[in-house]
């Protein structure tokens, strides 16, 4: 009946066309529809729950209201813990950015030999479950410097350690893409010191790496629960720790917190992206994809 449909769809397909017959194309769409639905369902349920009223025997809520959000702002710990989580994520971002910029710059312009040990060390956070990281830090500093225990300082140091790889990989890819070594040598020929090259040439071109790395670091620190609970716990409850303590409370309020937490994480990702997109950097488009591997 509609002979043109297949043709117009085919124009949009890429070079992998010959690898799969038509039947599997329909199959592929079905798989993706299923995946996207599965991914959206819990989010939809949370949003609906947070704005619902009297939802017991009906498929959808009987009435909608923002009462749970109003109740949320009456909770004394809500804004406090939210503020702590934002502060913690920003602190983590600062530590990780400074250390990784120095490291990656040095590797690419002076000491390529350091790449192998840096690569190996950046794998450690993947080999260590975070509950183990928390235990090791508490044991070690309990022995050598007990006054650090239960402090936000130890927590931000822990967050910095486990989120280091995100920034390291993003910046490392970025440096490779802009040919940092050549830029440095050109600068040196013209009489620039390494820190001048970093300040005026390399940093302005690190936008894509800082964006992708920064997004991952901020999001993972903001939503992190294991280290926060085990290192500072209720003494300095972050948003996820406070959120988890609400498990037996009114489900509408817990859903409202969840909506806020997910929204902040997504907003942060968007803000960093927009902010970085305005910064100079000719290679932005090219490296964005590589940095996000």
């Amino acid at each position, binding site marked *: 009946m509609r002979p043109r449909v297949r043709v117009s769809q085919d124009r949009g*397909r890429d070079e992998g066309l010959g*690898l799969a017959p038509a039947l599997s*194309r329909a*199959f*592929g*769409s079905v798989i*993706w529809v299923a*995946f*996207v639905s*599965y*991914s959206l369902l*819990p*989010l939809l*349920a949370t949003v609906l*729950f947070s704005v619902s009223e009297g*939802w017991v025997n*009906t*498929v959808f809520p009987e009435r909608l209201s923002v009462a749970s959000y109003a109740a949320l702002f009456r909770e004394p710990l809500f804004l406090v813990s939210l503020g702590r989580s934002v502060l913690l994520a920003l602190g983590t971002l600062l530590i990780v950015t400074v*250390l*990784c910029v*120095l*490291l990656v*710059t*040095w590797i690419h312009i*002076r*000491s390529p*030999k350091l790449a192998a*040990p*840096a690569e190996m*060390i950046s794998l*450690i956070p*993947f*080999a*260590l*479950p975070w*509950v*183990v*990281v928390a*235990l*090791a*830090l508490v*044991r070690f*500093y309990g022995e050598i410097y007990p006054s650090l225990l239960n402090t936000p300082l130890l927590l931000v140091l822990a967050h910095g*350690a486990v989120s*280091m790889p995100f920034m390291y990989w993003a910046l490392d890819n970025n440096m490779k893409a802009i040919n940092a070594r050549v830029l440095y040598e050109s600068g040196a020929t013209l009489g620039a010191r390494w820190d001048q090259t970093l300040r005026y040439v390399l940093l302005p071109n690190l936008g894509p790496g800082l964006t992708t790395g920064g997004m*991952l670091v901020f999001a*993972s620190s903001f*939503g992190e*629960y*294991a280290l926060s*609970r*085990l290192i500072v*716990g209720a003494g300095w409850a972050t948003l*996820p720790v406070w*959120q988890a303590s609400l498990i037996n409370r009114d489900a509408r309020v817990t859903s409202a*917190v*969840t909506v806020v937490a*997910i929204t902040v*994480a*997504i907003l942060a990702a968007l803000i960093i992206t927009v902010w970085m997109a305005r910064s100079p950097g000719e290679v932005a488009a090219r490296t964005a994809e590589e940095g996000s591997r």
Partner: protein
Amino acid sequence: MGVSAPHAIGASFRAVGPAGAFFIYMAATLVAPTAYLIWSSVNTPAGLGLERYTTVLTDPFYLRGFRNSFGLSLLTALEASAAGALLAGSFAYTLPIRSKRLLLAFSNLATNLGGVSLAFAFIALMGTNGMLTIGLRELFGINLYPGFDVASFAGLNLVYVYHLTPFAFLILLPAFRGIRQQWIEAALTLGATRSQFWRHVGVPVLWPSFLAIFILTFANAFGTYSTAMALTVGRVNLIPLQIGFLFGEAAFDTELADALAVLMIITTSLCIVAYRALSRRTSIWLQNT
């Protein structure tokens, strides 16, 4: 060898330069504490020994914890990497280009959802008063409860698969893209069928990537504390939760946590080493893409 020791140290200082801050930081936060943990696990009141390991590995309670952790992680890893492979295959070969950017961004977002928020989102969906629970009951008369419980291994399995599937997809995608159009053209020209191409070329090229992502998702699920704790409030016996209890709640022999932790480190480190070896093997096929 002609260089004197102080000179060599000075030279290596200059070689490390400002990058040293990174190494000192990681040593102070990860390397030294982990080394101390390993030492502490064998440092018993009666001198160095493996007492705590024998205690942990003969205690039926912890043995069940290990069995649960392995079982849940193996099942999750198998499901997530199989689903990730289906997604990557259909993404690379069948989807229209227009939808691809959006779906990539969506997968990135989905894989970064996790921890407490995701656990609570699943409670809103499949808890005793969840949207799906109510919907199935009112529309079809199907009662999820008491046969199902979101705060159980089945629930944890669903939540883990939720964020590990897009993760597997994103990591597998380059491997699927590595299978070039020219390869199948060459095979077809030489008289092979499509299924012969996949059996003799496609699958042999792809299986190390699949195994690699299986191992990586296993290690991730095996070490997860936050989602399990938030969803079940510690009501299931998994090793990460037991470690949390032992040192969080001032339990009887907190050093047992050290032995459990070292056993976890051994498992996950082996996974990461295997993952690296496998992905180096796959990178041969991806160099020119």
